[in-house]
């Protein structure tokens, strides 16, 4: 087999030095990596960086998720240790907050929203409707999405991953390009893990990351079944 020329070897030798991690990068990234990986920090044998540790990514995601919960009543499932109880989230689906959420705050990169059109007030809850800000018609579809995804998450919380998967399948039939598709996919991953279908969950993780590489749920998805307690954190 032909070897590389002297010139090519020289390029390799000189160039690969610059590929190395800069000094201190390992220590500087340690806290955020361990947090993102859901692993307890190592023993004190490894010195931490003396510089201030930035807010861990998971904590940032939590803050964003909390903002989203306040706005549209979802996102409580974005991190499993979110303190909001599932029941509260289910209530939020049927009773959106009185204050209209800023439309630009959403965990999903949305297309430009269509012109707002007042939605008919639900007959079953007239008093609540009076207190609501005008809701654009797409919100009705979004509420349906929320109801389905929350029902799926509720089934999962109740220990019924098969029911959760069925509800997610229903969601995907009805909302092929739904606003909450990433959240639905997260529920599917968790349900597959809960059902012991780890390989299927891994495949779903791959699809998730390919489809939504910039989703705030991305790292949570990458944890896959490890986050669902099927793995071992060391």
């Amino acid at each position: 087999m032909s070897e590389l020329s002297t010139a090519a070897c020289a390029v390799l030798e000189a160039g690969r030095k610059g590929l190395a991690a800069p000094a201190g990068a390992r220590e500087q990234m340690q806290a955020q990596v361990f947090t993102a990986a859901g692993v307890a920090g190592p023993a004190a044998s490894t010195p931490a960086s003396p510089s201030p540790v930035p807010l861990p990514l998971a904590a940032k995601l939590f803050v964003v998720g909390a903002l989203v919960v306040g706005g549209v009543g979802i996102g409580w499932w974005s991190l499993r240790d979110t303190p909001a109880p599932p029941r509260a989230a289910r209530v939020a689906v049927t009773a959106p907050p009185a204050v209209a959420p800023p439309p630009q705050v959403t965990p999903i990169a949305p297309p430009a929203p269509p012109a707002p059109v007042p939605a008919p007030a639900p007959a079953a809850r007239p008093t609540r409707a009076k207190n609501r800000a005008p809701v654009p018609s797409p919100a009705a579809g979004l509420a349906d999405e929320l109801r389905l995804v929350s029902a799926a998450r509720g089934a999962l919380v109740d220990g019924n991953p098969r029911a959760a998967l069925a509800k997610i399948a229903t969601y995907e039939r009805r909302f092929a390009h739904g606003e909450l598709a990433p959240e639905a996919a997260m529920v599917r991953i968790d349900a597959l893990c809960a059902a012991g279908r780890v390989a299927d969950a891994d495949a779903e993780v791959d699809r998730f990351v390919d489809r939504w590489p910039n989703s705030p749920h991305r790292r949570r998805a990458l944890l896959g079944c490890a986050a669902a307690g099927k793995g071992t954190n060391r």
Partner: protein
Amino acid sequence: MGMGASDTAAARRLAAPPAAADEAPPSFAEVYQRGFDYVWRSLRALGVRDARIEDAVQDVFVVVARRLPEFAGRSSIETWLFAIARRIAQRHRRTESRHEGRSEALPEDLVDTSRPGPRAAAETTEATRLLLSLLDQLDDDKRALFVLVEIEQKSVPAAAEALGIKLNTAYSRLRLARQRFEAALARHNQKELP
């Protein structure tokens, strides 16, 4: 260029498959400590831009944490890390392609000297920029093999195992990769002539 810097038992354990089936895989912390530099370097060589390298490194270790319990010692940890790094690098490159409107990173973007933090301390030399631009001329399969053999200095059998390809395929692919690398270098030198 291997993973380990110090000749410790832990470094040896990471560089080689477990000797016995009942030997426990290394802990996450151990893999992080010993594998960080290797992962970083591999990701850079596989085309992850400087602006994305920390995200990519973090992604690799998130996957490591998820999959470490499944690691059965069929290959060395180093080989396993490379396979993960390769997938993450592909994802990041696809992300760039989709969301930044680039089919491939421009050579001048591959080394970003303006960003603060640890990246700013990197040796961002012209030689590295040239090397990365030449590697960009290889397709993904050839690049991965070339990186393993020519940058990480693995044997061809070890690289074939890491990439899950037959030995004969590895040899023929490496020959092609070397030819393309040389051709890309010749084109570069031709441009540089006055």
